[in-house]
């Protein structure tokens, strides 16, 4: 593709998004659903408990003029800025916000979804295997604070492509997905896709084929992506001025001091505003043990309920529960302990 063709492609991408805007499903329902739950994360906690943390950023690449989660705006990355220009991202429509998407509850015929995993700033990831257990599809999902941040994630995926030509719009492959969508052609066979990525409101998704030698059962990544986007589109939208709610996480330790080799019971409470009864699977709980001290240990489910920290090395120890709710938003809470 020469520069002239590239410019034409750019124009095409712009036009494609314009065309999609008119027919975007769910847009009219934006104000109909009262999901304006507050993004409240701070609680009155015991002295040893550190206030719950807002998610440490979505990890969305930050493009000039855009912030995620209201943090300080870092200097724009020149590569991201260039990609943003190349893909005319400023003109991408911004669909309505959603509380998230329960990827753990999304199933397709012929494939078996594994347990989702996610440690921010990574996306929620879920692998789908065929009947023989061979992983065939990987879905990555970011539930961002707003549509701009979701665009940032989509741009992040596009920016780390090293091919010189922009990825084609998904529409070129007959796929109408979300607000802005792109697809990567696979060299494994004619008509095959390697990945599909799109943003729908504050959701950013990438669907990757894991087995280039065999397309996923059914009609391949295209059908998989359409089914996924369809399911996303069916989820309720938030009020225009609402923020997608994060889980509410409370963490308490039975003690703030223990000896190496001992166990400490941990109580972890998770509330998921807006998750609803249909969201499948439990929230993802990551235990991040660290901090500036030398204390060490690990956390496991306690057979008696809750969790238990096993201290395995002396020193100050921060125990943080990083929770990714069933709808894909993250929150964290922390306790500080001293391991003697």
């Amino acid at each position, binding site marked *: *593709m*020469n520069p002239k063709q590239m410019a034409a492609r750019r124009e095409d991408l712009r036009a494609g998004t314009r065309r999609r805007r008119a027919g975007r499903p769910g847009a009219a329902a934006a104000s109909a659903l009262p999901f304006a739950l507050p993004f409240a994360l701070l609680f009155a906690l015991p002295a040893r408990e550190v206030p719950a943390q807002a998610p440490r*950023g979505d*990890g*969305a*690449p*930050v493009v000039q003029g855009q912030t995620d989660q209201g943090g300080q705006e*870092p200097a724009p*990355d*020149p*590569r*991201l800025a260039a990609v943003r220009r190349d893909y005319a991202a400023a003109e991408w429509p911004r669909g309505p916000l959603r509380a998230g998407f329960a990827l753990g509850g999304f199933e397709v015929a012929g494939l078996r979804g594994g*347990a989702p*995993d996610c*440690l921010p*700033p*990574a996306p929620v*990831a879920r*692998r789908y295997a065929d009947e023989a257990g061979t*992983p065939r599809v*990987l879905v990555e999902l970011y539930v961002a604070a707003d549509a701009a941040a979701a665009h940032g994630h989509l741009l*992040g*995926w596009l*920016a*780390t*492509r*090293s*091919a*010189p*030509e922009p*990825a084609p719009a998904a529409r070129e492959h007959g796929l109408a997905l979300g607000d802005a969508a792109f697809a*990567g*052609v*696979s*060299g*494994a066979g004619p008509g095959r896709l*390697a*990945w599909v990525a799109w943003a729908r409101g504050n959701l950013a998704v990438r669907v*990757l*084929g*894991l087995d*280039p*030698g065999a397309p996923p059962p059914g009609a391949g990544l295209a059908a998989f992506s359409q089914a996924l986007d369809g399911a996303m589109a069916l989820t309720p939208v938030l009020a225009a001025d609402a923020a997608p709610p994060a889980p509410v996480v409370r963490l308490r330790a039975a003690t703030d001091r223990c000896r*190496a*080799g001992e166990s400490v019971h941990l109580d972890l409470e998770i509330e998921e505003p807006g998750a609803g009864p249909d969201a499948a699977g439990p929230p993802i709980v*990551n*235990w*991040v*043990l*660290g*901090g*500036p001290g030398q204390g*060490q240990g*690990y956390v*496991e489910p306690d057979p008696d309920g809750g969790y238990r920290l*096993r201290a*395995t*090395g*002396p020193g100050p120890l*921060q125990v943080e529960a990083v929770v990714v709710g069933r709808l894909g938003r993250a929150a964290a809470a922390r306790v500080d302990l001293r391991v003697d």
Partner: protein
Amino acid sequence: MRLLPAVGAAAGLLIAATAARAQTDPQGRDDPAVRLVLGGWTRVVDPKLPGGTAAFHVGLSPRGATARASVVVWRGTTPLRVLARELPLSGKRNARIEWDGRDRAGRHVGPGTYRVVVALPGAGRDLGFPVHVVRLGFREIAARAPAAADEWQMVYFRNGSGYAFTATPALHEYRNAQGPGERAELDHDDGRPRAPVPLHTDTRRPALAGTAIATAAYNYPLAFRSRSRPRLSARLGANCIDENGAVAAAGYPIPGVQLRCAVRDGDGVAWTRVDPAELAPGTPVEFEGPRLPSGVTRTDVELTWRFEWTDDRGANWREVPGALVTAHRFYTQPSAPVFAAGASGTQYAGPWVDVVDRIAAWGAALGSDTTDEQGVLATVILGFGGQVGALATAIENVRYDCYPLGGNGGASHYYLGFPPANVVQLSRLLDDAGNGPFVNCSDCASSTAVMAAMAGVRDLRLMRLGSMNLNAIRGIGAPDYTVHLWGPQYWHRFSYHHTVTRDGGVHVYDACLWVDDDANPAALPGTPGHNVARPWDQDPYAYRTRLATNAVGFSLDPLPRLQ
């Protein structure tokens, strides 16, 4: 000070004289010419140690005498076990009698002092001597280094079915004691001794007991700085199970008898005792081994732990029969692990087992020198890319994400994006390429940088290059060089490229591709040009001019964080 065999002629002579004087006086009443003579005898024994059988050598005097004797083990006034009823004895040669430490019901007796009595027919014609049964063994072994900064906990990145980081316990990397509901440290509840715990060789997951991380029995690998002398601090178990199924103390210290431990490795090299204190149940003994190898290495060592006793304040030491053999795996690396600034979490506790294991294997396969940081980084670059020497494929069989190789347009699958994200999901890559078989430059650069940093390479950063027209290259996992990376209908270009540097961009390391090192780098065929410490510029083989046909600049990204 001498070390004498547990049972042998030298000991026998010494003990026989004493024993005969002390024990055989009544024998002379029936036939003063025939006396029982005690040769060597096991005075301290742990029958539950492998090979821990007590042995007694008994003969007659004078030389021509013959008789038949009974041999019985007593506890107080209770006979526990008849070892022999009509044991033929002679004055020409001592008979060897063994006791496996069991009673007549076949149960191992508990610790305590027992008396073995050898009796000839006729009243009072007996010879008795004490045997101290003890229980010796370790409940924990902890790795130490003379300098604390020379030893690190290692990290696993998976749990049962998901991803989670677990560091080996800093308290002790080897444990062999009671689990939940069990009562004694050294024995199972049914009295069976706990066998040494086999080495945990899974490089991804910690030892599991069911679905939980094992807490009672595990044997994790150890990580030390190259050339350091490892120390192992082994804590003795304090209790065991006796023949009645009750918890019993380990049976020592013994009045008038001192115990100590000695360790040798598989090459017969004795480890140096750091703490010479007398053994006491529940306390540690510490040994220092010979220097570990240079570079990034993996060494499996079998240690034989023997116990010795003395009753003359250390003038003569005798072996307690039997020994414990434990297996240990030592990893070494030249420097302390380096992680992204400000990073926190268990994954930053120390080097990942899987990473150091791979680098050690790559170094061995390539015959590369990993004794310094440049050598380590070079090994990581070559090993990661593979297709060189004995390494047939790239790591986890990945290949460059391009159409001719079945992929797409160089999409990143493991690197989560430029700063501020700047995270690489190395655990997914190491886990059978869990995010798929395709990689791009950012995946390779971020992964190799964090792997090398984990093995102690400092000052690593990613070089982010601008767009470029390419010369002939061979992408990772590709069968050959190409001048059509994306296929013949596309430009042979990169929109950007990511590599690694440890000197701010003066030299380049790149596992993602090979450049063409022949006279015409723009054309096929290609001559293998690995990118290990390749000058960025100002050199006939400079990376910039070998890779690209246009002027290319770069910026530096920090060392990525890890997942």
